[in-house]
């Protein structure tokens, strides 16, 4: 944006008025200057004319005074006084000073005898007491700012003898004033600067100080100029003021309505703006009102567009940040929130944070069993429960699948545990069975990762810690809520370590590193090996990686099917290598993913050549059974028909639903080690006994896992288990090319 002048309309108008005023003032000054120059020229001309006029008037005055003096010299009484000067003083006092006998042109008079001597000495007379008869001339004497004119004339009748002299004194200025003959000179400002008496009239003229009186033409011109200035002032100022008034009143008000309208639009909306526009009084400008209306309409449309845009933005944000299925925020929102939280942490002191991570136990099995729609509803229900459980303002994020996270702000371990317990409680109390028809209990595994005050743990690390804790909580005998601590790393740290990843993917993709260990399953009655359970190990460097490290990663990466296939391939190799003794068999652990795989029959078909001499057992877990139960049942049924023995693994560690046993195509039921190890407890033993009776009654063969000592063996035998498996009867070991095993010899 250019940095131009930005002022209010009112200020622009005021500047306009001031500008016009200044321009007018400048033009007036210029005009006055030109007029002054012209006036000066005229004044010079007038001065010259005045000088001429002064000379003329002076000449006339002097002529008049001389004429007066001449007439006075014939005044009879002067001759009377000259003839008889006895009464001169009296005469002077009464006729000159006290009377009106003296011509008004003169101020004083003195009569001299023929010898030039005054007839009498008059004290206050300003005429000389004696005349220099050799030099009788007109004399000009200073008299303040006036000039006294002294005229002397002889008293002489006709050609007679000179009887005396008369001297008169006149005021030059008074006589000039008396004549009133000036047209150019201001007589009232007439003055003389004569310094000493003189006979020279030119010197007197030079001593004249005067000012020009305004001539009629000049006065008329001044009046004309004044009138012109006034008219011009009116012509400029009135329109300017009118225009300013017009601009301020009409345009200004109208223009100011626009920002007012904008303000109203911004604060009170278009309807209020339109009401005010319609109700506004004063002068209105239709064009500007059109602009206002257009603004209002535009604002309305803009508001509508903005609303739509906001809606779209919200939708977009929701799409970008919110999970469509559950309404919870997604992983992107989690990342953004975490960033925001980090910046907030820098500005506000937060005591501590806790990251709560949870997922739904066996969700995949639920999803597979009840279908995706039910799975989706389970997730929605879970979110609903979690929302109720978490504190207000704590946001819930769905990080993926059935995995949810919540960042607990200003929360310690105890409070976090309380929140987690509420979550667990809410989910446990949700009527999944009534609403969704899910018979199995839906439970959460919750991991909590603490963030120490002041630490800046990256989100990834925090998530991993919460993940470790959550997976730890999934382990048997662990609670459903686990707070991360470093000790968990030793047990779970490899789950997601790069080395395990590398090892697993090398097995799956390159079929390298997989080493099968076989643990014998013996018949109780004779101790012979019925078959071996194939347990996978991955050779990674100089160590073996065991399933407890492999399976969580495989499950989290959903690699079960691929890993199963690698195991199948390796077993086939072992079969072909003659490593599996004839008369025995191999139990293969198959994941749910493989069981429901439509190609499972084809994948296991390569074992059929060995089925004549070997027992092939497919071990599946309860979870596997409930995952797409029909499909799984169908596949297992077909496999059973093909000669495979189906074993239900880890019975007693999960749902342990007896109803499944009646409906599922299971041949063997492998009691979980937790059940077997607890046989020393009478109540537990009695439970196992009843279970065993039931299993036997439905035609299933029982296998006791985890038989590690003779005491347990005696219990197992007493209870009537048909097969046993455990360290007492052989640890999992690799098999080499084996000679025929003798009965009763453990591997």
């Amino acid at each position, binding site marked *: 944006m250019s940095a131009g002048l930005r002022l209010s309309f009112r200020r622009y108008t005021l500047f306009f008025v001031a500008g016009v005023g200044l321009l007018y003032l400048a033009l007036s000054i210029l005009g006055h200057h030109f007029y002054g120059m012209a006036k000066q020229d005229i004044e010079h001309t007038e001065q010259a004319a005045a000088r001429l006029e002064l000379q003329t008037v002076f000449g006339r005055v002097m002529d008049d005074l001389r004429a007066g003096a001449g007439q006075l010299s014939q005044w009879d009484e002067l001759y009377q006084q000259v003839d008889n000067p006895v009464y001169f003083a009296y005469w002077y006092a009464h*006729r000159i000073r006290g009377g009106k006998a003296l011509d008004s042109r003169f101020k004083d008079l003195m009569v001299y005898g023929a010898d030039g001597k005054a007839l009498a000495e008059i004290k206050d007379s300003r005429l000389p007491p004696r005349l220099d008869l050799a030099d009788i001339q007109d004399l000009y004497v200073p008299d303040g700012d006036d000039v006294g004119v002294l005229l002397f004339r002889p008293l002489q009748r*006709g050609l007679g003898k000179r009887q005396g002299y008369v001297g008169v004194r006149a005021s030059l200025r008074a006589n000039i004033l008396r004549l009133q003959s000036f047209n150019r000179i201001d007589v009232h400002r007439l003055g003389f600067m004569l310094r000493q008496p003189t006979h020279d009239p030119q010197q007197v003229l030079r001593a004249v100080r005067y000012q020009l009186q305004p001539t009629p033409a000049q006065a008329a011109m001044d009046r004309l100029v004044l009138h012109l200035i006034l008219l011009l002032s009116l012509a400029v100022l009135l329109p300017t003021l009118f225009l300013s008034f017009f601009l301020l009143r009409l345009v200004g008000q109208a223009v100011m309505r626009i920002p007012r309208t904008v303000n109203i639009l911004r604060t009170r909306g278009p309807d209020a703006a339109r009401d005010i526009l319609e109700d506004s009084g004063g002068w209105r400008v239709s064009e500007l009102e059109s602009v206002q209306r257009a603004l209002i309409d535009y604002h309305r449309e803009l508001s509508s567009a903005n609303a739509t845009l906001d809606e779209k933005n919200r939708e977009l944000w929701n799409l970008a940040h919110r999970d469509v299925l559950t309404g919870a925020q997604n992983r992107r929102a989690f990342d953004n929130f975490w960033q925001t939280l980090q910046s907030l942490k820098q500005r506000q002191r937060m005591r501590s944070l806790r990251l709560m991570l949870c997922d739904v136990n066996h969700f995949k099995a639920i999803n597979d069993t009840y279908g995706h729609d039910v799975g989706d509803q389970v997730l929605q229900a879970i979110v609903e429960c979690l929302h109720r459980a978490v504190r207000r303002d704590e946001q819930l994020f769905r990080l993926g699948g059935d995995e949810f996270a919540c960042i607990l702000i200003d929360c310690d371990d105890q409070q976090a545990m309380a929140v987690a317990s509420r979550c667990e409680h809410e989910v446990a109390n949700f009527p999944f069975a009534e609403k969704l028809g899910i018979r199995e209990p839906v439970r959460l595994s919750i991991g909590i990762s603490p963030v120490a005050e002041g630490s800046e743990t990256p989100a990834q690390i925090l998530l991993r810690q919460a993940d470790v804790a959550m997976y730890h909580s999934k382990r048997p005998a662990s609670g459903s809520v686990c707070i991360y601590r470093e000790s968990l790393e030793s047990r779970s740290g490899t789950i997601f370590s790069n080395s395990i990843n590398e090892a697993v993917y090398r097995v799956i993709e390159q079929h390298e590193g997989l080493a099968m260990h076989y643990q014998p399953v013996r018949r109780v009655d004779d101790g012979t090996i019925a078959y071996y359970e194939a347990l996978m190990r991955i050779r990674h460097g100089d160590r073996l990686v065991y399933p407890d490290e492999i399976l969580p990663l495989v499950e989290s990466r959903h690699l079960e099917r691929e890993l199963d296939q690698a195991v199948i391939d390796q077993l086939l190799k072992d079969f072909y290598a003659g490593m599996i003794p004839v008369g025995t068999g191999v139990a293969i652990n198959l994941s749910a993913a493989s069981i429901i795989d439509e190609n499972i029959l084809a994948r296991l078909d390569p074992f059929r050549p060995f089925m004549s001499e070997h027992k092939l057992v497919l071990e599946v877990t309860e979870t596997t059974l409930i995952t797409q139960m029909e499909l799984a049942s169908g596949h297992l049924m077909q496999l059973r028909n093909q000669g495979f023995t189906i074993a239900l693994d880890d019975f007693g560690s999960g749902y342990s639903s007896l109803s499944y046993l009646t409906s599922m195509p299971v041949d063997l039921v492998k009691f979980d080690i937790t059940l077997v190890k607890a046989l020393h407890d009478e109540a537990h033993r009695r439970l196992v006994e009843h279970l065993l009776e039931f299993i036997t009654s439905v035609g299933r063969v029982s296998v006791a896992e985890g038989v590690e000592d003779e005491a347990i063996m005696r219990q197992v035998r007493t209870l009537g288990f048909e097969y046993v498996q455990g360290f007492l009867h052989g640890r999992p070991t690799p098999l080499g090319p084996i000679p025929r095993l003798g009965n009763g010899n453990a591997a």
Partner: protein
Amino acid sequence: MCTGLKRWIGWTGLLCLLAGQVFADTVSLEVRPGIRASAVYLKAGPAKGAVLILHGFLQTREFPTVSNLGESLHDADYSVLMPTLSLGIDLRRRSLPCEAIHLHRLDQDVDELAQWVDWLARRQHGPIVLVGHSAGGHVITRYLATHPGAPVKRVVLVSLGYPVGRVPHRKGGGTRTLGDYSLGFCLRYPTTSVAYHSYVDWSTDKMLDTMQHARMPVDVIIGSSDKRIRPEWVDRMRKGGVKVHIVKGANHFFDSAQEFDLDDLVESLLDDAGDGEAGT
């Protein structure tokens, strides 16, 4: 206008100018040492004689009543002498204001009149007529009284008055000290006691007596509207046997239309060789 008429007018004008220069002359007399008095002398043929017309109090011969009458008589072929009394001023030209210093006396005026009568008599070789206006008659009566053998054949006194003295504001003393007097129409009249009394002492009784005993005809002409002449005075003159002619409607100065009445009356009196009718 034809050329002949223009030529006639030109010649007539020239003749008139020459005649004026020839017959109208200003003459002067040194009436006293250093004091000259002047007069206008309108000379005519010897047939009708000469007339001396004397002006009134403080006036000059240029006073209209006097000058007009003089010209009228001159037109009637009288030689006319109109002097201006000097009143103590050399070649006095203007009337003397009341406020001026008045050192002149009646006897000086009479003396000047006598000199002019003599001057005129010498040129006319015969008796003359004296005409006086206002206070001029006062001087003439004094002259008649003091000069019983004067060459005067007739006296006509127009608006005959006399300076009436009143109580002075400040009385002068003797011949030198000035006093503020009232005399005639002058309410303030600076003069000496001697000069003052020279005028006021020539009383109406003396005037009347002089007129009654004059050896020549004395005619008095009075305007009926003259406010300055007291009726008692007129009555006294009439009762004293003085021929008094009343001009109806005339004032003291016989101006306006009465100017011609005066001229005609004076002419008729002068033309009348014998006595005039009194009580006109």
